[in-house]
C-alpha cells in the first residue's frame, strides 16, 4: 500500500450553493487507504496549469471505492473541475499526508469538530470515524453548505460572519455563546481561525489538532515548498520547518507556530 496516481472517473457532481461543489470520484486504491484528514492532489487537463490542486477527503465509500471532494471555485483549476460531469476522468494522487489522530477522540471523550469555510469538508469524514461524543462547530461567511450532513454525528452549531444563520461572528463566538465545553479540538480552516483556536486550547488546557494549508508543488515531501514553522526540529532538515504535505496537514497545536 502506497501513494498512487490514478485516473479516476467522476461518479457525480453537484453544486452545494454559491461556488461550492461536491464531486464523487471512483478511485479504488486511494479510497481503500484513505483516513480522515488526509488529502489528494487533483491535476487539471489544461496543460498551462502544471501543479496539482490539494483537496481534502470529505467522505469515502469504501465498498464502492468512491471518494467525495467538496471544494470552492477560487481560480482556474477549481473552475475546470467544476465543469466535470459524470463519466469524465480526472487524475488523482493520494492519499497524501497524515490524518487526524483518531485515538485522541476515543470513547468517553467529548470532542469539538471545528470547520471554517472550505475547511469544513474534511471534518465530515472525521465525524463519521471518531468514536467519542462530538460537538460540531461550523463557521461560514454567509451561505451554508454541508452543515445538515453533520447532524447524524453530533450537535451542530453554526456561526456566520453576517449573522444570517446561527451566531453572528466566528466559531469561537459560537462556542462561547453556547457555553460549550470539550476535551479535545479537531479543526480545519483559515489561518486566523486556527491561530485563535490554538490560543483558546492553550488557555483551557485542552488537546488541539489543527489541519494546515500551504502552497504545494510535489505533495509528497520532496520539494520543501509547503513548510510551516514548527516548535521541534523537523526530521527532514533539522531546522524547525515541518512539511505540511508530509508531516501534516494535521499538527498538534503546540507543535506549530503561526
Amino acid at each position, binding site marked *: 500500500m*502506497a*501513494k*498512487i*496516481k490514478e485516473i479516476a472517473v467522476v461518479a457525480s457532481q453537484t453544486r452545494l450553493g454559491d461556488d461550492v461543489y461536491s464531486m464523487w470520484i471512483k478511485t479504488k486504491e486511494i479510497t481503500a487507504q484513505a483516513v480522515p484528514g488526509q488529502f489528494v492532489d487533483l*491535476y487539471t487537463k489544461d*496543460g*498551462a*496549469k*502544471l*501543479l*496539482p490542486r490539494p483537496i481534502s477527503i470529505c467522505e469515502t465509500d469504501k465498498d464502492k471505492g468512491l471518494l467525495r471532494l467538496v471544494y470552492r471555485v477560487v481560480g482556474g483549476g477549481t473552475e475546470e473541475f467544476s465543469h466535470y460531469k459524470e463519466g469524465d476522468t480526472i487524475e488523482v*494522487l493520494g492519499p497524501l499526508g497524515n490524518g487526524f489522530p483518531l485515538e485522541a477522540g476515543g470513547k468517553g471523550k467529548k470532542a469539538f469538530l471545528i470547520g471554517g469555510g472550505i475547511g469544513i469538508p474534511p471534518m465530515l469524514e472525521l465525524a463519521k470515524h471518531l468514536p467519542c461524543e462530538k460537538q460540531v462547530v461550523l463557521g461560514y461567511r454567509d451561505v451554508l453548505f454541508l452543515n445538515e450532513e453533520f447532524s447524524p454525528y453530533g450537535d451542530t452549531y453554526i456561526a456566520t460572519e453576517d449573522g444570517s444563520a446561527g451566531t453572528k461572528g466566528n466559531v469561537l463566538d459560537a462556542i462561547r455563546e453556547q457555553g460549550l465545553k470539550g476535551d479535545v479540538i479537531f479543526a480545519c480552516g483559515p489561518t486566523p481561525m486556527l491561530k485563535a483556536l490554538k490560543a483558546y486550547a492553550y488557555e483551557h488546557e485542552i488537546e488541539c489538532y489543527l489541519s494546515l494549508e*500551504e*502552497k*504545494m*508543488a*510535489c*505533495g*509528497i*515531501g*520532496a*520539494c*520543501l*515548498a*509547503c*513548510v*510551516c514553522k514548527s516548535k521541534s526540529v523537523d526530521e*527532514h*532538515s*533539522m*531546522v*524547525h*520547518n515541518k512539511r505540511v504535505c*508530509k508531516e501534516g496537514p494535521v499538527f498538534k497545536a503546540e507543535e506549530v507556530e503561526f
Partner: protein
Amino acid sequence: MNTKVNLAGVELNNPVMTASGTFGSGEEYSEMINLNHLGAVVTKGVANVPWPGNPTPRIAETYGGMINAIGLQNPGMEVFIKRDIPFLKKYDTKIIVNVCGRTTEDYIEVVERLADEPVDMLEINISCPNVKEGGIAFGQDPKAVEAITREVKKYAKQPVIMKLSPNVTDIGVMAKAAEAGGADVLSLINTLTGMKIDINRRTFAVANKTGGLSGPAIKPIAVRMVYQAANAVKLPIIGMGGIMNAEDAIEFILAGATAVSVGTANFRNPYAAEEIVRGIEGYMKKYNVEDIRELIGAVR
C-alpha cells in the same frame, strides 16, 4: 540497443536523472517509481550546515511553469551523509550530490567532506537565484565561475559538474569559463529569475519577491543554451529545463546533451522520470537507433 552514456568516466545505465531540488534524495518518490531504472539521482542541494530556507509562500504556479524560492533548505552534510547516502546506496543508480554554499569555503567544506563517501559525482550549484549570499552571484561572472571551479576541483575526488545559470548574456562564455577552471561536466539550465504579483492582494506571490522559473515554459531557452554550450566547449553536458516527456528529453540530446535531468515534471507526474527512460527506448526502436550516443548533438 545501448542506452548507456558516459559522464567523465562515470557510466550511467541511461541518460535520465532527476533535477536537484525536485526529488529530495529520492526517498519520497521511491514509493512510486523504481530508482533502479534511473541513470542517476541528483540530490537536493547540500550545504556544510543546515539551512532553514526562505519564508512561505515559497512557490507560485505560472503559465506552463512555476517559480520557486525554497532558499535551499537542507539538513547539512552530516545528516545527509548519515541518512541519505545509505538510502541511495541500496539502488543500482548513480548518486550525484548537488552542493550549495554561501562562500567558496562553504563549497569546499562540503566537497572535502564528501571526498571519501560513496557518491559518484558532485554537482556544484553556482546558480541558485534564491539566496542572497551565494549561488547566482558566482554564476553570472565568468571570472568567478572559473575561480570557483578551480578551487572545487582542487579538493574534489569525484568528477565535478558545474551547474550554470541561464541568467546571463552569453552562456557560451560561462561554459568556457567553467571548462577553463577544470570542470568535468556542465549542467544547464538552472532556473530563470522570475516574479509573480498577486493583483488581488497586491503583493508578491512568493515571499522572496523573486523566484526561479522552471517547467516547460522555459524549455526553448534551455535547448538553445545547451546547443550553444555544446558548441562552445568539449565537455559533456547534462541538459535540463522543462523536460516533461521523452520527446523533450530527446530534443535536449539532439541539441548536444549527453544526459538529461527531469525536474518540475515530477510534480505534474510522479512517474515522469521512469516513463521518460522507457520513451527514449521507444524512440530508439522506432528509428532504429542502435546506440543512444548517435543522437547526442545530432542536429546542428
